[in-house]
């Protein structure tokens, strides 16, 4: 019952990504729909892989956010796949995994001195964002996003991508309720 009351409360609000908790490898079955992947860097040495199987070349925005109070927490992300620039030696050293042969990489280092503070209206949390970055993934192929903390800082993060909303599947909300501490307030 509580769940339906909350859904009623949340549904009219403007813009919402599909929530999904991060796993060591997180497969996204419909990457054309906007998602927010939430997780916690507990030890600071974790590295997560988000797998995005695109059926066509796409351009879409991505960003990584952390709780507002974690001022020094700056997890980064790298997009890896075909048609992207070949990593330099410095980039290869920086990355948590080796870039597969024939793939390239774009790295978002989350290193703006001043990060935008963002009030997320659906779950009503205040966050710091790396800033929205539109990326062009130029092949109909599977791309991966790698998320890690190069400074080994710990704390929650949320990786958001895309803008198309689709909540027609009622089970879309399940991860939100099953992981309320990660996404809720």
């Amino acid at each position, binding site marked *: 019952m509580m769940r339906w009351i909350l859904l009623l409360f949340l549904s009219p609000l*403007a*813009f919402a990504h599909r929530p999904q908790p991060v796993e060591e490898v997180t497969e996204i079955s419909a990457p*054309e729909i906007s998602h927010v992947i939430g997780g916690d860097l507990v030890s600071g040495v974790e590295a997560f892989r988000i797998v995005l199987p695109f059926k*066509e*070349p*796409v*351009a*879409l*925005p*991505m*960003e990584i956010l952390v709780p507002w109070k974690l001022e020094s927490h700056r997890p980064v992300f790298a997009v890896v796949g075909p048609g992207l*620039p070949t990593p330099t030696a410095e980039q290869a050293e920086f990355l948590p995994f080796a870039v597969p042969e024939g793939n390239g990489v*774009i790295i978002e280092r989350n290193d703006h001195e001043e990060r935008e503070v963002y009030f997320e*209206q659906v779950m009503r949390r205040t966050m710091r964002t790396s*800033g*929205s*970055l*539109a*990326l*062009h993934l*130029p*092949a109909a192929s599977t791309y991966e996003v790698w998320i890690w903390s190069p400074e080994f800082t710990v704390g929650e993060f949320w990786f958001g991508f*895309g*803008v*198309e*909303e689709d909540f027609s599947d009622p089970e879309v909300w399940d991860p939100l309720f099953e992981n309320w501490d990660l996404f809720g307030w």
Partner: protein
Amino acid sequence: MRYSFLVLFLFACDKSVEQSAACEQWVSCIDARDQLNGVSTNMVRFLPIKTDADGEIIEGQCWGNPEISDLCDKGCIAGLEKMGELYDDLPQECQQ
């Protein structure tokens, strides 16, 4: 008179905004790269807003409300800048 209030109310409820200049350039830039590479990128979300007969947004999902339009606009600005850093053979449409 009563209907003018209704029209005013409906207008006030429409939170859609116009495609930003940065995203217009972003679309042109990717289009130009696509032509060079012989591919077609799905950029429907960044195009000017278009709705079907039921009012559902079928193109330009970026422009459905101010929050998401801000996300897209900032994304396009940062995306064009990032492209300039990453590639030295960009079409003229991508130059800032």
